[in-house]
C-alpha cells in the first residue's frame, strides 16, 4: 500500500494488489473502489463551506454516507476544510501518477 496524500486529519492510500483505495479517517479506515472514490470526491466537492460561516449551517456539521451507505461520517467545520484539501491533494497525486505512467 502506498500513501497518496496525507492532510491534517486524513490519509489516502492506493493498493495495487487489490486495485483499490483506502482512506484513513481518525477513527476508522475504509476501503473504496474507484467509483466509490469518485462518489466520495463528489460529496466533498458539494460541501458548501460558506454555509458554515454565514449562519446557514449553524451547527457546522456535515454528514457523509460513503460506499453505498456502508459508512456514515460526521465532520465539523475544521474537518470539512481539511477534507476539501485532502480530496484535491489525493486526486492531484493520482494525476501525477498517471503522468509518470504515460511518460515512461
Amino acid at each position, binding site marked *: 500500500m502506498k500513501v497518496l496524500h496525507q492532510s491534517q486529519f486524513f490519509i489516502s492510500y492506493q493498493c495495487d494488489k487489490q486495485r483499490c483505495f483506502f482512506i484513513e479517517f481518525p477513527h476508522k479506515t475504509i476501503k473504496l473502489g*474507484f467509483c466509490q472514490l469518485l462518489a466520495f470526491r463528489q460529496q466533498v466537492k458539494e460541501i458548501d463551506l460558506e454555509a458554515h460561516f454565514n449562519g446557514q449551517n449553524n451547527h457546522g456539521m456535515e454528514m457523509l454516507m460513503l460506499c453505498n451507505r456502508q459508512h456514515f461520517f460526521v465532520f465539523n467545520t475544521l474537518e470539512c476544510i481539511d477534507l476539501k484539501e485532502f480530496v484535491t491533494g489525493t486526486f492531484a497525486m493520482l*494525476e501525477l501518477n498517471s503522468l509518470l505512467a504515460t511518460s515512461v
Partner: protein
Amino acid sequence: MKDLVRQKLSIHVDVMDLLNKQIEKEAHSSSAYLAMASWCDHNALSYSADFFYEQAAEEREHMMKIFRYITDNGGTAFSPEVGGVNHDFKSLEEIFETALDQEIAITKSIHNLVGKCRKVNDYTTEYFLHWFIQEQMEEEQTMRRALELFDLMGTDGLGLKLLDERIPQIRDKRPE
C-alpha cells in the same frame, strides 16, 4: 505504482466534471425549450410549438449522449437538477432570440470543454465532442434562420400566423 485511475476511467477527471456540468446545461436547455413550446401553444402558434417540442426532445438526447459517454467510460454521471426555467415571454421574436442566445452559450461551453481536453491530452473526449461542435453550428444556423424570418416578414395581424407556418422550414435538411 499502478495507474489505477487510468485502468478504470478513460476520461480525465476534470473533463468528467465539465461533462457533468454540460449534462446540466443540456437538461436546462431541454426544459427551457419546453417552456417556449408551452408559450407558443397558448398563443396558438402551433408550428412553433411543435418546433420547440422537438428541440426539447433533442436537447434531452444530447444530455443522454453525454451521460452514456461518461458511464460507458468508467466515470460517474450525475442526474441533473433543473431550476430557474423562464416561462414569460413578450413575443415569438423574443423567444427565438432567447433560443439563439442559449445555443450560443452552449456552443461556448462545448468549445471550452474541447479546450480543456487539449490542455490535459484527453483526445478521446475531444473526438467525442466533435459531433457536438457540428451540432451547435447547425443549431445556431437554425435559430438565425428563424430570426431572419422576422426581418423579412411582418408580425402584424396575419403576418405572425404566416410566419409561424414557415417555422418547420427553418430546420436544415441534414445528411444522414
